[in-house]
């Protein structure tokens, strides 16, 4: 499994002054190889499919059309519709581009990125995307979600079992929607029949 190759005493004696040059010579094929490969990829790997998070960002926005929030979820008519991202933002700039100049029921949309749980508890939103629930453990999240009719959206298997409302799961290269209808109803959310027909209802408890 192993070839022992080193002649240590030689190296010790030599402490060669030309080693610096030889190291550059060794580097040359490495760089050449990398350059070659980069060009190969550039040719072969063309963008043929849609980026998962482009599609998910559009889904997120579309979902707002199919859900009716209870009246008391908004302080007044001017209250913006708040969409939050908890933890790491997998969308990059995409979600901002999707939501640009859009409205939900005549309300302008504001995007919030929550760095920590405290901010979220202090300033809940109407729709919360949690990409990695494990990284964003937030005691009291479920309570606050119920109080404020906050629709929690995830994209990992088992998200609904963990208390989420909507899960965008990847299946056979497509996105499927899973909805925890019982919990949604409990929160006073109305989800349109059209969306329910297109999605899988998952019964929890």
């Amino acid at each position, binding site marked *: 499994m192993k070839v022992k*190759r080193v002649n240590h005493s030689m190296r010790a004696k030599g402490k060669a002054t030309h080693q610096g040059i030889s190291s550059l010579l060794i580097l040359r*094929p490495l760089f050449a190889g990398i350059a070659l490969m980069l060009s190969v990829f550039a040719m072969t790997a063309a*963008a*043929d499919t849609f*980026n998962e998070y482009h*599609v998910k960002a559009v889904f997120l926005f579309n979902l707002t059309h199919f859900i009716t929030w209870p009246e008391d979820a908004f302080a007044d008519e001017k209250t913006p519709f708040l969409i939050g991202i908890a933890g790491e933002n997998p969308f990059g700039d995409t979600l901002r581009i999707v939501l640009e100049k859009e409205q939900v029921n005549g309300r302008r949309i504001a995007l919030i990125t929550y760095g920590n749980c405290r901010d979220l508890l202090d300033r809940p939103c109407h729709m919360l995307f949690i990409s990695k629930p494990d990284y964003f453990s937030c005691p009291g999240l479920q*309570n606050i979600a119920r109080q404020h009719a906050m629709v929690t959206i995830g994209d990992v298997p088992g998200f609904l079992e963990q208390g989420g409302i909507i899960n965008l799961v990847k299946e056979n290269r497509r996105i499927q929607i899973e909805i925890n209808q019982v919990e949604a109803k409990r929160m006073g959310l109305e989800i349109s029949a059209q969306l329910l027909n297109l999605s899988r209802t998952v019964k929890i408890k």
Partner: protein
Amino acid sequence: MSQKKSTRHYDTRILLRLAAAFFMLLLLLPAIFPSGSHAITSSTQNAENDEAVIDYLKQLSIDELLLTEITSVSKKNERLTDAAAAVFVITAEDIRRTGARSIPELLRIVPGLQVARIDANKWAVTSRGFNNRFSNKLLVLMDGRSVYNPLFSGVYWNVQDTLLEDVDRIEVIRGPGAALWGANAVNGIVNIITKSSKETLGGLVTFGLGIHTDYNLGMRYGGTIGKDAAYRIYAKGFQQNAFEDESGNDFTDEWDAFRGGFRVDIGKNGRDDFSFQGSLYDGTADQRITTTGLLTPPFSITTKDTIYFSGGHVLGCWRHLFSNNSQTTMQLYYDRTDRKEGVFGETRDTVDIDFQHQWEVTSRQEIVWGLGYRFSKNDTNGTFTISVSPDSREDHLFSAFFQDTIELFSNRLWLTLGSKFEDNDYSGFEVQPSARIRWRYNPHITLWSAISRAVRTPSRADQDMRVNLASFPGNDGAVNVMAIVGTDDFDSEELTAFELGLRWHPCSWFSADIASFYNLYDRLRSIEPATPFFEALPSPPHLVFPLSIGNKIDGKTYGVEVLADLQALPQWKLSIGYTWFQVDLDLNAASGDRSALEYEGNSPDHQLQLRSYVNLPFRLEWDTMLFFVDQLNTFDVSEYWRLDTRIGWQAPHNVMVNLHFENILDDRHSEYGNQSGINASEMPRSVYLTLSYRL
């Protein structure tokens, strides 16, 4: 044993051939594996501009959206907890709530790791045994930069630091990760990842002080440059007081450091992301050191000594998305570290270049492969006690890795095969393969298992170093010196590891993670008595009894690590961790070593931890940690309990106040013993207050 080759040139030729062979092999891969099917045909899909793609997607109905095919670079989205390995992630929340002020103190909360504080500025940290100040089987990376010192093979924990508020997470993998990360990732990897500067906009000032801390000041400012770039600059300085000896006297192990740095992240449309960072640091760490092997009475002296350390790094990383299922990363860094203490000094320059390609071949197969080269040059300043010959050396490390993850049954069973190939200047060519399997039994239960081979490659300390352990007057009046002497014959230590784990997530408020391992080690480092010889210089002439470094210890370690998280109440999170660790080493028949026992007794058999995070009204947080660590037989260190608690208050106007009590249960306790001339101090009870202000 190998035959000695005649010239250095020959080495170079072999390396070239190896490199060429890898390139050829890797270039062939795309031809071997068919590329994924691309179902959607639309003129917009090839558009360079994301906005056009998004506009296209937005005019689709929800039915159409559901039929849209997507791809993703799964590495990007893969949850680390889905890996077929024993993984623990320290989150930014943990960093805040544990109140830890240094990276090794944070690592205490990871089940399966063993963290022992040697003195106020030194730690012994390891995963799965062999704990030592130079734990040579744990690889530590900061944003992809290795901070493992190849001279002693280990990590100088008192040098590795950053503004902890800017750390995004620390990923800890116990067990071998050599197939991906390379040599010395034998028993674990600690991967410290800082936030993107897009996530650290605005200003932050933190100020802390306490019984054992004169001050700890941190500052950061982050802003944007145009639409697509963000930056941050930071500075941190602290002065920490000494710990205590067993009677409570000052141990003279003060520690101070200043560091500053920057990070710039540039990303446009998610196609190309660039990240640049750099840092400079300078500090001193005092220690009580026993200088041994002196030629005149009293032959060894214990004195206060100061380590002067300084250094810095620059790193650039370029991530490019060729398509949604193909992504490459190129990373280049330069690191300099300079360190000088009474008996030894070292300056090291490292240049490292890494290339990685992640490729989702089909929706059920992902390939990751990469190439790397590292050049490292060090200059040492030895003394009679510790010397390295030759005092300067240049090393080259070539590496390539390949990993293929296949989804055998849809959403049920995954198989990961991979290997790293390395060529280093000490032990030559090394192959480190692994096979991992993950079975999602149901949405609540995941089982995983792995078999891996990993090596700990020789360091200069094993091959080029001499350490005079002790000296004493001989029978004939001449001084006798006992010395550990490195030899070129020392070869890599080898591990074959068997792992089995279970993750159980039965409901939203409870989860458990159990990992077990059985590690078989071959050719571990031993110290073998060799033929005595006379040495005329330095005078007086003396007789040297060498202990030459060999590979004559075999053995096994095994253990179980359990972590359970419980959301007891919406405001109350509890974590319970338990680690059981056993080690059983055997000397070869041919060995005359007496030190094997030392390895057996430097890691605790049992470790227990309990963490509680409570959210109280009035924006208060109350967090408590309790640790139990079993005795260490090697040093006669008794078992200890440690209790820490913290009260945090999110005050108005973006001010955060933290009051942290450390080691409440006893006046002081010892966590490690004297080793390699370093005298251990005891960790006292302490109180610490921080104020932070975000603007």
